[in-house]
């Protein structure tokens, strides 16, 4: 009898805990569909459109140095960039980091830009890359636009986690209220991408304190960086209240109600919004060790009078 009771208790416990975890079906039906209208999706998918909204609403974003709207604009764009350095070329509708080109300083002698590792990037190669982007090579559509952003120089905390690129803070917001947050850290294993499924690192942030409290790598909780050995827990995210406020304002600037807002912290400019996602992933629950259901409930409690 005790076995039956124990089993029943375990099952009951599982069912109770299950209600706190949000699966894809529940996310779509209760969060994405009711809050995000299909026709507003382009605002999330098109980084340039989103950026226009953010600029209009006064949300800080990385400075746009140039945009390239078609093949005809490629030469002028390249001309405008020659002599300048430290920028990033991105497709407006790219996904998964495809087509993003990070460029270093301009080398007057070589007549080319420096890339990571000292490789050279000639204006001709730059023109070809821009042409590829406007041709839609990186965006599964017939044509796209390219834009050039000033390269963010990450705050020391983030630079320490991943020197070669950019870590961002993913903040989940519901009706412009932050619900959950984590740092996404690329690793050498993930090939420089912050994708958690490909070996990237997720570090949970306690929403109230802005302190890192948990880290997950390949589904396992870790306390130190798997490659550098740097400690991951108990770190204070710089400008935390400003990061949250930036995410809140970015979410408020678009008509989408349930979002993943990606914020980077620039060493000088502070928090900047990189992009927003209208169907943010659910892996953040594993990173925080907290169901989205619990987080939503907690957020509701927090705002109750």
């Amino acid at each position: 009898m005790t076995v039956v009771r124990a089993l029943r208790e375990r099952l009951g416990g599982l069912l109770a805990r299950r209600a706190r975890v949000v699966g894809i079906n529940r996310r779509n039906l209760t969060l994405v569909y009711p809050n995000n209208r299909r026709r507003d999706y382009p605002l999330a998918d098109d980084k340039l459109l989103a950026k226009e909204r953010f600029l209009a609403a006064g949300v800080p974003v990385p400075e746009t140095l140039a945009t390239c709207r078609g093949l005809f604009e490629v030469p002028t764009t390249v001309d405008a960039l020659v002599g300048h350095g430290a920028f990033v070329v991105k497709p407006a509708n790219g996904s998964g980091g495809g087509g993003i080109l990070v460029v270093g300083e301009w080398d007057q002698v070589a007549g080319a830009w420096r890339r990571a590792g000292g490789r050279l990037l000639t204006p001709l190669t730059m023109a070809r890359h821009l042409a590829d982007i406007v041709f839609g090579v990186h965006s599964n559509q017939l044509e796209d636009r390219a834009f050039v952003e000033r390269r963010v120089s990450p705050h020391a905390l983030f630079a320490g986690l991943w020197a070669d690129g950019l870590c961002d803070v993913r903040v989940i917001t519901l009706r412009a209220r932050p619900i959950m947050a984590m740092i996404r850290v690329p690793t050498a294993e993930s090939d420089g991408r912050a994708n958690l499924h490909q070996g990237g690192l997720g570090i949970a942030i306690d929403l109230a304190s802005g302190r890192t409290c948990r880290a997950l790598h390949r589904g396992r909780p870790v306390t130190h960086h798997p490659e550098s050995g740097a400690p991951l827990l108990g770190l204070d995210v710089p400008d935390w209240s400003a990061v949250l406020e930036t995410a809140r304002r970015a979410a408020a600037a678009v008509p989408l109600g349930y979002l993943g807002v990606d914020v980077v912290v620039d060493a000088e400019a502070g928090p900047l919004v990189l992009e927003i996602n209208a169907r943010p992933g659910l892996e953040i629950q594993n990173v925080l060790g907290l169901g989205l259901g619990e987080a939503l409930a907690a957020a509701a409690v927090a705002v109750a009078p």
Partner: protein
Amino acid sequence: MPPSHATKITAVSAALVLGGLGLMAYKVRALGYVVSDVLPVTQYEVTYAIELDGRGGEVKVRSFLPSSDAHQHVTEEKDVALGLHLTQAMEGANRVATWTGDRVPDGAQIRHTFKVLPHRMRYEVSPDLPVPTAYPASVAVSLRPEKEIQVDAPEIAALLGRLDAGQGPALQRLTRIYQATADLRPRPFKGTTDALTALRLGEASCNGKSRLFVALARKAGIPARLVGGLIMTPGTKKTSHQWVEAWVAGHWVPFCPTNRHFAELPEHYLTLYVGDEPLFRHTADVNFDYRFETHATLIPSPAAKASSTSFDVWGLFDRLHLPFSLLRTILMLPVGALVVVIFRNVIGMPTFGTFLPALLAASAGETGAAWGVVTVVIVVAAVAAVRWVLQELELLHSPTLAILLAAVVFTLLTTTLLAERLGLAPLTKVTLFPIAVLAICAERFYLSLTEHGGRAAGQELAGTLVVTLACYVVMNSLALQVLLIGFPEVLFLVIAADIYLGRWVGMRLSEYLRFRGLLRREASP
């Protein structure tokens, strides 16, 4: 106040379920649809495969072909006999086929194929039915002695006396004769055994037992005759079979003492001819060999076909001369899509698109599930190889896909060519795979490979194949197919299930694994 969303959903689902079930109930109760008719029946395809060495001379082969009757429905006869000409004639009740040819070379082949839909026949013989004293002339012939049916031999009369089967009602006489012949020891003897030999030896094969039965029945005043035919068991064999018919109350009633069927003709018996005749006669100086090849397939019962009278899609397709397989595919697609939805939304298995596994399963109808999977794997491998080459060229997306389509076509043709060389008959049918479906599959795989990498693309491919197999099993369930043809309103239930799953917020099975850490944790304070 306007109805809430949940109320609307419930109302629509309830209307669909009640409407579907209600229509089905109405058709069963008021229109007389018979649910048991929905079960499929076995159709046999029988081939006479004859080989002979004609030695360049004149050849004549005579045999019997089956006729349609209450027991068997014969269709789709096909004759392939190079250099031989088939003529047919009725001799009494028998269809006699004669293949003739001049200068027939060695190794000439005749392949005569037909499909048979048989029914089991059972007869009730009233226990007090008397044996008449006179019969119509056409039946009375079957009372006479024949060379190997020695009706007038004293030993036959003596045996009849010992059995006490020469008098009394017809049923009593037939039962005793049947019992005595059925009790003869079986003997797998291929040659001809006459009635007297069977009696003297106390053992016989089917033709000896049957001849003794006929001799005894005739002596007892009941017209009887031999029946020649086949027992249709799937496979290849050389043996034909003989049994008996006795004239009772105006009917030829079958008896098989060899396999103990009394007044009954089992479903898998095929009647070819009546009378004491050999199945084959041929020109004397030729080498002659034959075998029977039998295949069994399940098909929808004709009763189900006949009972579908309202919203009769089957009849519509018949009138438009559209193949049954097309109707089946169309009706089963929503069911296949429901299977995909269950795998994606309840189990959480990634696939290429929602419809693709169902479409692939429908396409695999021609090749079978296993070869369908092989086809997809071959095409996907070709796509991966082409992508590897194209990557270097850095082409735009749409032209790349157009090249992929050409690669798919080329792969299919090459596969068919190789399969034909290697004698892999099922694989030669891959060209029947709708190219559009394979092209979509190739495109999805390519996109997944490009956007999510090899690992994710491999997972999606594996998921697609698993779900395709599940769809294949469900969509090829004959009972389900016939149910949907008879009751297309079952699709209302399918839609209701889709609506339910469309509002289902439960965790996918795969998510229990993904979030197992969270589910194991105690509640945070």
